[in-house]
């Protein structure tokens, strides 16, 4: 078992809750986490593509760093990790 902290923003935060703890099987990766959360959201909402990749409308940070830097959806999760779910954003 591995416990991670999820922080979700914008529409995802409204649906899932802004911050909560999630328990996953040991050896889980970011893709596993997304599948669990997708199940909570319900039909029609895709947090992970059918090919196992993260859809372009979603940005995920693992401990504050883009998950792209550590393997994308295959990034391994460790006890105490913080996973931030953000809609694709740009501006400034």
């Amino acid at each position, binding site marked *: 078992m591995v416990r991670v902290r999820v922080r979700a923003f914008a529409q995802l935060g409204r649906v899932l809750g802004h911050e909560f703890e999630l328990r996953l099987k040991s050896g889980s990766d970011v893709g596993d986490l997304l599948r669990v959360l997708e199940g909570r959201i319900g039909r029609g909402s895709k947090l992970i593509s059918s090919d196992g990749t993260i859809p372009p409308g979603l940005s995920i940070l693992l401990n504050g760093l883009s998950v792209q830097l550590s393997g994308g959806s295959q990034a391994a999760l460790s006890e105490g990790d913080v996973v931030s779910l953000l809609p694709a*954003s740009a501006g400034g």
Partner: protein
Amino acid sequence: MKGRAFGFTGTMLRVNLSRGTMEEEPLDVDASRKFLGGKGYGAYILFRELRKGIHPLGPDNKLVFMTGPLTGTRAPTGNRFCVCTKSPLTGGWLDSHCGGSWGPALKWSGYDGIVVEGRAEKPTYLYIRDSQKSLRDASWLWGSDTFTTERLLKDEHGADGMPRVVEIGPAGERGALLAAIMSEVRAAGRGGPGAVMGSKNLKAIVVSGSSKPDDLVRDPAGMKAAVREAHRKIAEDFRTSKARSGGLVIRGSCNIADGINEAGGWPTRNFQEGSFDKILEVDGDAFADSLWVPRQSPGTRPCWNCPISCAHVAIIEKGRWAGTVTEGPEYETVWAFGPQCGISDREAIARADYLCDHFGIDTMSVGNTVGFLMECFEKGLISKEETDGVDLRFGDAEAMVEAVERAGTLRGSLGRLVGNGVKRASEEIGKGSESFAMHSKGLEFPAYEPRAAQGMGLAYARSDRGACHLRPWTAGKEMLGWNAMDPRTTEGKASEVKTGTQNIAVAWDSSGLCLFSSFAYDEAVVLKMVAAATGFEYEDLDEFLRIGERIDNLTRAFNVREGFRRKDDSLPDRCLKEPHSVGPCKGLVVRLDEMLNQYYDLCGWSRDGVPTQEKLLSLGLDFVSEQIHGRGGTHG
């Protein structure tokens, strides 16, 4: 000039306020092919016409209002104009950009740009309607805020079509070094252009014209196809698409606040921390849910020809600031009056935004400076004597708003300290405060913590106008997760900053497009539109992008001529010596020297930051090389 200009009107207006003269002159088409318009053409004018060492607020300084070849065409977001001058805040190069409707209206009135010289004896405004122009008395407007000024001038000239106005407020009139030039609540805000306009006794420029977008274009069919492609890409992108409820559309520029904060990159309490614990009270959703009126409501209006429509309008309906209506606040403004000052009161942030627009002063630099003074106050470096009795502490929303209000008119000691920016304030206060006065070259830091993104540190330090988040905006790659770059390392950052800076300089800051369109389409699409509009036949994309390198070397040389060197490509000690406190970059400082060496080498500049003669000549900048190196070449 050879041949007719397309994409441009082909005519510039030169106004000498000392003599009261207005003369038309042809746009130099050869120069516009080499420097395009906007920033590039403005730099081409000012490098040749401004003497080294002139006072930025004296009559010898000039103010260039310049459009790009896509301004006023059907290119989506083609609504930008820029203001170029010698900055009173930095003493170096300044280009500051603005959207809205004024740029297109200037183009349709018959001019690509206006060069303003000298100083009027009394308050004056310039009125242009379809190439008919006059200098008029503005004594009756002097002292008016920007909203009143614009309304009065539109009332005065409303019978003559649809007049558009740029103006200054009391901040510019009084020479506040942070003063902005405003137009329809939008700002050419950075670097103090409003103070330059005020020093010339020029209150406003009113333009209206009856040309149409298609009148300007060389190849209407090619333009139509390129514009269709640009629109399609904007409609498809998750960030810019209305149909996909894109972040920019729904939550405005503040849609990035959550991500930047999660990455430890949202500077808090004057960059003492990199993450704001009350983020959910001030992010884009929080404003959308509370203060912003629904989109498409009366009074909400995007910039001309913008399919993205990032702008929102906030209304405070009750309480101490009831009746306040403001466009925004935008991401940078939310940060400046929010986390930077330790404040989560949305109404206070919106009120401060309104006051800055009202007085015509830069929200980003004002908020940065207020946060700095809060730290000074809490550390006992200044007292209530310097703050005119205001208890200026982090988290005190009333005190923050009071400081902003005073800055707008430079009122009292506090107003003067805030309104002239953080560099002057720290020099006056001393006592080591310079180490946490967050600026580069005198321009205040924006809303990104450089210790949480090494590339942003290099971008702030090397920027021609001082600490700027747009030259380039590496934050997207370093902190928001698209085409990700590791924010902790310096690897690849010099190249990213060089390429990004140059590409932005040509494809957006000199074309007349808004930088937000770059999230949806790239430089190749811009080139298609520029080529169709102008008829310029660039050999390939590389030749087009080479313009950006030429412009960046030109503004660099402008600063070198003023004495800027490597020592000025600097960051405060807080970034270089105090390790970051939170997030993935905890324990890190900006490794600036290492990146500067790589950056200068890539640019073909000396290790002191001076473009080499060889580099300048290779870019066709012979006239620049002569001034920097002499005819024979003396400086490596």
